């Protein structure tokens, strides 16, 4: 099946006087990596929050796989295959890497209203958690307490948590934030490898990553999409150059 996996129509959100999302319409195709770029405070994170369901829009519609999910609670959206990661790392710091990921696996593996059997003995959860840890480059750190991981490792776990929900569409909010060049390369490799199975809406300031990964790019400025197109189209778009990219890309 082709056609858009995610469709956003006329989404609107304001905080007091600030218009954070201004009539945003956007589509993410199946199998597409769609980058969302824009200056600080443009409203990228706010848009992710509305798509993932933690923030209710003032107006507009969100369709996922053709169904209207605008009023669906977040956990239902996750069960349906829509997961996000966070710009500011949000993991379970006192749990081990395996326990972190096993939590996300558990959420989609039957009911958690189980009061008697120790969850630590559910090897199926742990095995899957370890496989995901390996996938995001944490294979050697499965027993480490998440809070004790290095910054880049925590960022990998951050993305791993979203991945462990087994999503159809991943909303990644600056996955490379604060990563060194080597670590960024690894993350690019990971996202590249995901493209077979998962569609991605990628918010990222690292233009190298964006132009290497994205099938299409949308540019958000002051809450509004000012352009959507292929990397080549966006690179030469005069309005985008003026509002955001400047000399960054031509250099």
């Amino acid at each position, binding site marked *: 099946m082709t056609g858009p996996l995610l469709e956003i129509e006329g989404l609107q959100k304001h905080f007091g006087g600030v218009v954070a999302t201004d009539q945003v319409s956007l589509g993410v195709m199946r199998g597409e990596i769609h980058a969302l770029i824009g200056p600080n405070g443009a409203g990228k994170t706010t848009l992710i929050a509305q798509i993932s369901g933690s923030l209710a829009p003032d107006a507009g519609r969100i369709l996922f796989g053709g169904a209207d999910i605008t009023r669906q609670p977040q956990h239902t959206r996750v069960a349906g295959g829509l*997961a*996000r990661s966070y710009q500011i790392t949000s993991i379970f710091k006192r*749990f081990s890497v395996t326990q972190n990921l096993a939590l996300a696996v558990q959420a989609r593996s039957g009911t958690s209203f189980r009061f*008697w059997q120790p969850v630590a003995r559910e090897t199926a959860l742990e095995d899957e958690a370890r496989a995901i840890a390996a996938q995001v480059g944490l294979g050697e750190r499965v027993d480490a307490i998440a809070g004790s991981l290095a910054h880049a490792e925590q960022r990998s776990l951050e993305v791993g948590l979203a991945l462990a929900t087994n999503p159809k569409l991943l909303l990644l909010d600056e996955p490379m934030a604060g990563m060194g060049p080597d670590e960024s390369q690894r993350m690019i490799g990971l996202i590249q490898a995901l493209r077979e199975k998962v569609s991605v809406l990628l918010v990222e300031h690292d233009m190298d990553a964006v132009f290497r990964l994205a099938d299409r790019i949308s540019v958000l400025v002051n809450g509004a999409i000012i352009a959507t197109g292929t990397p080549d189209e966006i690179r030469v778009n005069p309005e985008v150059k003026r509002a955001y990219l400047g000399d960054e890309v031509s250099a």
Partner: protein
Amino acid sequence: MNRALVFGVLVLAVAFPLAMRSLDQVYYVTMASRFLIYALAATSLNLVLGYGGMISFGHAAFVGAGAYTASVMIVEGLPSAWLAWPLAMAVSGLLALAIGAISLRTRGVYFIMITLAFAQMIYYLTISMKAYGGDEGLTLTQRATVGFGLDLKDDITFYYVVLAILVAAVYLISRLVDARFGRVIQAIRENETRMEAIGYPAFRYKLAAFALAGALGGLAGALLANQNSYVNPGILHWTESGKLMIMVILGGVGQLYGGIIGAIGLLGLEELLANHKIGWLAAIYPNYQQHSLLAVGLALLAVVLYAPQGIAGLFSRRGRK
């Protein structure tokens, strides 16, 4: 905590009434029963406050609802514990479900205040129940009956029943916190936002924990009413909720034995200060018995400063290293 230590304490708890009987000090058995009942109440609060991270300031409402349910059953001529105590749990559990369904939509200080407000409402409700004693309270003509040739009027038998219930409840909680449900509520305490983002309806799990804790609190209330053969609205007063919170903090927030240690510690301290003249202390400070609350405050301060995991945390840290 170390298994051998737990087993040793349990053996002492079983032997305690026999030793007291041979010393002709059965008064202490009655006192110990009261300690164990509060241990159960504090343990049930620890499930929400400690493991679930929900700072409920109204737990006495559930204890009180259970106490009144069990008392009313006796007064109305249905003294069977097999009927009255499960009913007390059901009433308290449902009450917690209703209060939780509203309160758990709020966060932080609002949650503390709204649980407190609901509990005070129930407190005033019991005062207005003139048919069941109003603010005078309700005296029970007998204790509940359990069959099997056991007579709860006998203080030693009553003690063993309380001990068995406490052990069962702690075992239940120990299973629960290591099961899927327990991991979920502890993860919600740690990072509720992320739990939603990986697919958990956090509210439902919190509500279930809140209701379960309410039901266990109700059971403690039923035992307390029987122990005293009396119940009055004071059992629901907000100071009682505060006392349970102090027990949990003292004993260890989110520690399996925190409620027990805290209850015995606090009540033991109170008992010591109120009823036993401590010679050296009186020599330094003759009026100390009038200021027993100060001692409790100081103990709490010491715990918060030097043992943030409570007294139980001191043990488990030593055990692990």
